[in-house]
């Protein structure tokens, strides 16, 4: 009988405790959610500079990507590629629905995706490499 009463006591406290476990779990999610909201909207992706012979942009630098990101030598581009083999308006990266695409904007020397010349809009996956002039980039998953 005493064992039963003891078990009952434990069960009662366990029930209360589990409600608090639930609240604690929710609070953890909420705090994480608020922290990430405070950091601003999640990135769609980021572009990391792998190799850059002239040092502009510097290797290792990364750019958070908008839905439309232009690349080229001109200062109006989102990502300025200061390379003699890059055109003023060289290429554009677009996020369409669920996937990234790169499109050449009629550059002189072309845009390469994983070493292959891109003809027309080309779908990209995270991890793919893009080459503009002598500068090589890699598309990476953004912070979420």
């Amino acid at each position, binding site marked *: 009988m005493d064992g039963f009463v003891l078990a009952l006591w434990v069960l*009662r406290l*366990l*029930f*209360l405790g589990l*409600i608090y476990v*639930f609240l604690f779990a929710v609070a953890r999610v*909420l705090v994480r959610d608020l922290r990430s909201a405070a950091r601003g909207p999640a990135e769609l992706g980021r572009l990391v500079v792998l190799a850059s012979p002239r040092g502009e942009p510097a290797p290792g630098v990364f750019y958070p990507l908008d839905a439309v990101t232009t690349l080229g030598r001109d200062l109006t581009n989102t990502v300025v590629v200061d390379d003699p083999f890059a055109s003023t308006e060289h290429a554009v990266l677009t996020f369409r629905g669920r996937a990234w695409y790169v499109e050449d904007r009629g550059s002189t020397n072309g845009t390469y995706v994983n070493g292959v010349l891109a003809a027309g*809009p080309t779908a990209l996956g995270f991890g793919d490499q893009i080459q503009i002039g002598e500068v090589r980039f890699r598309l990476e998953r953004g912070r979420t």
Partner: protein
Amino acid sequence: MSALAQARPIARRLPRIRPRTRPVEFGLLAIVTLALLVGGASLGATEQWLRAQAGGEKLGAFGFAPPDPRGLGVYLGALLVVHVAFVLAGRRTDQILLPAVAMLGGIGLLLMQRLPQDLVTQSLGSVELRLGQLQLLWLIISLTVVSLLALLVRSDHWLRAYKYTWAAAGITLLAMTFVFGTDVNGERLTLTIGPVSGQPSELLKVILVVFLAAYLSENRSLLAEESTRIGPLRLPPIPYLAPMVAMWAIALGVVVVQGDLGAALLFFAVFLALLFVATGRLSFVVGGMVLFLVGSFVLYQLFGHVQQRVDNWLDPFRDPLGSGFQTVQALYAFARGGLLGVGLGAGLPTIGGHLPVPAVHTDYPLAALGEELGLMGLLAIFGLYLVIVERGLRIAAAAQDEFRALLAAGLSLVIGIQAFIIAAGNLKLVPLTGITLPFISYGGSSLLANAIAVGLLLALSDRGAVPPPPPRRRRWHGLFRRGTVR
């Protein structure tokens, strides 16, 4: 496959249904399931133990079966079904609202299974349903409503474009209650159409939020300016204030005449809260509070039952066996509960075959929970309501336009404010007004109305939903605004 074929235009593609896991929701639901199973076991064991003690017999084997294992199982199964439906539909909706509501609903179900089952009985054909089963039935219906709204609502056009229609429908429903309604406990709140009966004021609170959100979002900038001056008062342009105040006054008036003071208080508070959210002007809130005090004073003078409620609140011990009976018994129940409570099933001994708190399943569930789960239990329950409000405000903050923001804020605040009003009433912080404790109290109308609110919140939280329509062009036409062109 050539590169061109890969890059086909995808702008006009229909939303493709693609399952998407919801790990957070699953984890939280698992905790809810575990908690409710433990709660059920605790309740069943306590009842068995009490029965054995009353009979003076020794308990043979330990029994930890919940009092209605099938009912609890059906509820938990329904939660799983809703979760699976959400996963299969693949919408990126909020993952915390459902578990929070499920926890509150589950606590309510345990409470209803624990109370004397003949408090409410209803016959459906040849089957007689009792309190616990009826609550389970309404919970299942509510979960269905939540999931249908969360899965199917992709555009809010049907809400924002027909705000006056919705408002008119709500007022009509309320007026019909006034004319054709049936009296329950001296208050005419229940409308019966055919086999369906319900309290329209519960539904009206959702409609009021929809109307206010649509109206305020359309006229927000105009309401924030101060062009009308009455003495020292600076008010927004009257033509834009009038329809809103009229809708609110009609709703409030009908409710007050019916004697449903809880709903009146709720409407007033939601109105002020949304006005503040939309305009950000504290002067509206202060002015509203002053109006509220004046109105309360007038009501106190006019209505006998208001006086009685206030007198009970000020000194329930003046007539502890008459008008103050419920309040006093509820206070005793809270006191018996203490810090950790007496345990599910061990509270509320009947006195002479009667419940000490007669309306324990509708107006006073908090008293029963306070006795059986104690202060810690009540704080946890308040925490759950806080979570729902926080989620609503987060959804509002992330909303794509003002209507959705105001709607999300309003829907969550209406739940939070209602919980506050009835909890404060039960704890004798404010005069008691008879409204339900959302998701816990027994009652189909209440569960259904709150389910609609939660379903809409879930639909609003979907980041991949249909983008909001472009704002409508507005023209000044004096008092009558006609011909708004899309």
